[in-house]
């Protein structure tokens, strides 16, 4: 017991020294600061709710907001980013070649990507599974009924593999047609080129809610093929950048837990209700230095984009045309699976 105590004492002493040691700054963050812009992944078209282009040719969506949040955290200006349009198939080559600094684009965390593609993933910020949507007139309720049918998917995605794997497991004879762009895929499904459309659950729901004339004419089949953790992907070998991205995500979740919103963030920073909020918003120094950022990064970020709930509601939830329930993507305290690491 005593021995343990001394050990932890040593550890505590060592830890207390840490702030004094200058944090090695991430080369990626350094590059971003020199460049003055953050290069984020966009899409070749619109991936509704996550990466969209509006009538004024501006990007919006959940993933775009996360990019803006990260931009604010690093550079202090939510608009100091460039959204590079990429197809699904191009996103990893583009990341590897440095055309983008990271991928925040509904990207699942897989072992292959983690190891063979040389990527690193952040905390999952979203959970969604692969499902099928089919034309209602076919009278289908589950994937077994798709026998002999044509199924469309997006090429180069995990969905492509999961759907192929699932259909061969349950022994459904089918034809698969895969497209390189979401727009092409959507057009093909709407035109009835395929009987069913394998997609990512939230995306299917968004499509059904808005993109197709009559939502009742389409059914989302009962099969739940997977539940994928969606994370930001970065190049391997820059742990400090992963830290920055992880704490950017964590800060948005903590802000939601603590009830900090873009509206009240200044007030909360001025009169922090508890030490956690004080630390998060930089009312108490130290938070920035540990990540190689400014102390006020989280405060500026929340002022610019809001907490996770605000971002969700704006892009997918009640304030968006899609009106998706938060479901799994709620805080753990509200029945979801999202949680932040401990801010100490």
């Amino acid at each position, binding site marked *: 017991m005593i021995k343990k105590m001394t050990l932890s004492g040593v550890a505590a002493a060592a830890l207390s020294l840490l702030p004094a040691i200058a944090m090695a700054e991430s080369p990626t963050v350094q590059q971003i600061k020199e460049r003055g812009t953050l290069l984020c992944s966009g899409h070749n078209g619109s991936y509704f709710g996550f990466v969209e282009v509006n009538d004024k040719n501006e990007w919006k969506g959940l993933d775009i907001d996360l990019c803006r949040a990260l931009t604010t955290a690093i550079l202090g200006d939510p608009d100091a980013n460039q959204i590079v349009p990429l197809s699904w*198939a191009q996103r990893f080559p583009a990341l590897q070649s440095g055309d983008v600094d990271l991928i925040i684009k509904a990207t699942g965390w897989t072992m292959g990507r983690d190891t063979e593609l040389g990527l690193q993933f952040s905390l999952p910020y979203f959970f969604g599974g692969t499902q099928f949507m089919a034309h209602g007139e076919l009278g289908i309720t589950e994937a077994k009924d798709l026998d002999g049918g044509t199924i469309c998917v997006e090429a180069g995605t995990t969905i492509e593999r999961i759907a192929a794997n699932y259909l061969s497991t349950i022994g459904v004879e089918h034809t698969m047609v895969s497209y390189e762009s979401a727009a092409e895929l959507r057009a093909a499904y709407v035109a009835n080129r395929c009987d069913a459309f394998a997609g990512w659950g939230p995306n299917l729901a968004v499509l059904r809610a808005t993109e197709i004339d009559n939502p009742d004419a389409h059914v989302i089949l009962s099969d739940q093929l997977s539940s994928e953790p969606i994370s930001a992907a970065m190049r391997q070998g820059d742990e400090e950048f992963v830290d920055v991205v992880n704490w950017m995500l964590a800060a948005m979740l903590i802000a939601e837990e603590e009830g900090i919103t873009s509206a009240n963030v200044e007030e909360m920073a001025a009169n922090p209700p508890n030490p956690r909020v004080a630390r998060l918003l930089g009312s108490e120094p130290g938070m920035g230095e540990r990540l190689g950022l400014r102390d006020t990064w989280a405060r500026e970020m929340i002022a610019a984009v809001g907490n996770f709930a605000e971002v969700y509601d704006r892009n997918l939830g009640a304030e968006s045309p899609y009106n998706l329930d938060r479901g799994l993507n709620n805080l753990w305290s509200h029945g979801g699976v999202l949680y932040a690491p401990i801010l100490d």
Partner: protein
Amino acid sequence: MSKADELRLKAKRRKILIQTGLIGLSIVVIFGAVVTARTNLQSLGLTSGFGFLARSTGWDYSFSLVPKTIMDPYSQTLFVGFLNTLFVGFIAIFLTTLFGFIIGTARDASNIAIKTAATVYVQIFRNIPLILQLVFLYSVLINMPGPRQAMSIADTVFLSNRGLMLPGLSVTPGVAVALLLVSLAFGVFLIWRKSDLLRGLLTWGIGSILMCVIAAIAVRPEGASLVSVPELKGLRFRGGITIPIELLGMIVAITLYGSAYIAEVVRGGLAQVPKGLTEAGQALGLTKGAIWSRIKMPMALRSIIPPLGNQWIFMMKATTIGVAIGFSDLFYIVSISITQSGQTLELIAILAGAFLLVNGGLAIFTNWLNARMKLKAH
């Protein structure tokens, strides 16, 4: 040493210097690329090498001439893509050449209406990018009625947004491929025999059809009827031959565009035939068809074949746009494989190698054809 000798020596030295410089530069660039690639791949944690070819892919794609599963290794999937490219390429080459000659001849017609129609066709289809025509056509095709409301001719031929369903002979895919190859060989044989153009085409067409019918009767699968007719069962048509809409779109788009180009080549060739020859034919009382096949075409072919060969290579290369509509040609398969496996360099090398092989072969064939035609005209 005279001044001229001195100058010559100087020039010679300079030439050696330039060439050594060029070789040196090439070596430095290639070596530099290899070294950088290695360090870049290492720092990204990517593994290099062709080991991935034996791994199964785990993903599916739209079209294959041979049976496929998601357990196929990358090597086989790539080979299927290569076959698809060749398949579409050769069909496109055949059709564009056929229609190109017809339209090119029409451009040269004496009847003003036919000439106008051919000119309008060429001016429209030649002046719009192929990829735009393809996605345009594909949008139109997939917005056709679905399989349940398919348009049909006498309930044997169906056209829906899933594809074109034709009645077909009941043969196994292996026999079909064999028949295709034999038919091709027959065509080459006829060219080698220097047979007359029109008669050659007829012999080839009738011979190929006869051969297919005989083969279908001889090696028909047990219990199958001679002709299999497509029939709607469940979500799709079964039986007969199905040409998926992506394949149909590729063939039609490349044919429309390529025919316009080949028509121009043919017209150019026909325009170079001296008018006196045609008039001589008319004086002899030859029919228009005979003048065309005996006098004009053989003369024109000499100037047609070299640019025609270039067009054939272009058709083969044009198959790469299949990726725009989800047709699984070699480029599409390579592009997906890169995302799914991360083996960028190896896959690009395979892709480039395949095209060098095919286009090299086509160039050799064109040269051979050219030589045969030249000999004949002498």
